[in-house]
């Protein structure tokens, strides 16, 4: 290990706690770009720090309502140096439209039917222990995710089908009109520009 690496490694704890100055922060972030081991170490420190913040304080009444109220207006989030993470590639996303709403409903109906059958099978068998219930819950979760994926592309490279649909230029006429088109700004449909 070079002396330079050692110097940066020594900063990782302080960096994880935001206890470095601006120049050091930038230097460490450059270092992290080429050093996955250091990225892992920072993440470990942050998990420990999260444990230190174990005591929770009830958030003030009305705060959630304010957040929820601003969602449909897609309030721009301050672009300041909010996240100290290295962002992933960002695919596009779009609003739910009528087609996908129906597709989701159809997919959900399939899941409901499947769950019904599963539930019927479960009740006809004699086992009903807690662990089996939990396993069933996990299966349901996975099933739901699959059903959702079949109807609507998501944005997680590792967790979604490959299809991507942007708001404009869709080949399907019925997709061109979002049910939320009256409220959401056009930028919601644009590729995100996070870097």
């Amino acid at each position, binding site marked *: 290990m070079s002396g330079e690496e050692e110097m940066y490694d020594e900063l990782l704890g302080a960096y994880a706690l935001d206890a470095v100055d601006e120049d050091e922060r930038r230097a460490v972030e450059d270092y992290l770009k080429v050093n996955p081991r250091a990225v892992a170490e920072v993440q470990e420190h942050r998990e420990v720090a*999260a444990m230190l913040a174990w005591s929770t304080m009830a958030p003030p009444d009305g705060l959630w309502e304010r957040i929820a109220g601003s969602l449909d207006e897609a309030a721009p989030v301050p672009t300041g140096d909010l996240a100290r993470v290295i962002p992933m590639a960002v*695919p596009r996303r779009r609003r739910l439209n009528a087609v996908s709403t129906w597709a989701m409903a159809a997919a959900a109906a399939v899941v409901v039917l499947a769950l019904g059958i599963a539930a019927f099978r479960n009740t006809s068998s004699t086992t009903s222990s807690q662990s089996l219930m939990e396993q069933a819950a996990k299966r349901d979760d996975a099933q739901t995710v699959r059903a959702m994926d079949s109807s609507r592309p998501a944005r997680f490279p590792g967790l979604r089908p490959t299809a991507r649909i942007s708001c404009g230029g869709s080949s399907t006429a019925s997709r061109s009109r979002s049910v939320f088109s009256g409220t959401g700004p056009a930028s919601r449909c644009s590729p995100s520009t996070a870097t």
Partner: protein
Amino acid sequence: MMRITVIRMVEPHRIARVRIDHTTASDASLVMGMARYQQDALAEAYKRHAGVVYGLSKRLLGNQAQAEEVVQEIFLRLWNQPDRFDPDRGSLRSFLLTQAHGRSVDLLRSEGARRRREERDAHEHIGGADELDRELWDLALAGQVRSAMEVLHPGERAAIELAYFGGHTYREVATMLGEAEGTIKSRIRAGLKRLRAELQSAGVTLGGT
């Protein structure tokens, strides 16, 4: 168990709405839900983590209005850019806390509001005794964190507390404690590593690699 209910609305257009009960979903599935604009998924994430995010911000900022702004920013950002969270890299809670901490510290450093907090004893922050009546305590975990803190060298503990809960840079901590900067830098890192090992041996599950 994740339950799905299809609610048929009685309005003329009869759009079927799909509602998903997120209460037992994993944090990762919640974030996937947000990518699909499921507001309920964000609501559930808020229910799980807003308390601790607010608590940390309030401790750092000492100001309720600013802490609320930080919480709002962090959750709106999660909603707008859910893909920034990578479940393979760590827990959602530490992801949110990291952002809240960074944002709070930025506010402190940019506004010079920190002087007010210097009178406060950072050592109290671990126990959080000043806000006792408003806080909800997870007693088992609190005990584990506290005993883990006790195995630290007192110098390590002070450095971590002043940096994390005080929002000070390691240089400032060095000045405050009358130690060399390099010493404080090392103590923070070594202390965090020791804490991690201690918490793990106490059976606390920690995210990360």
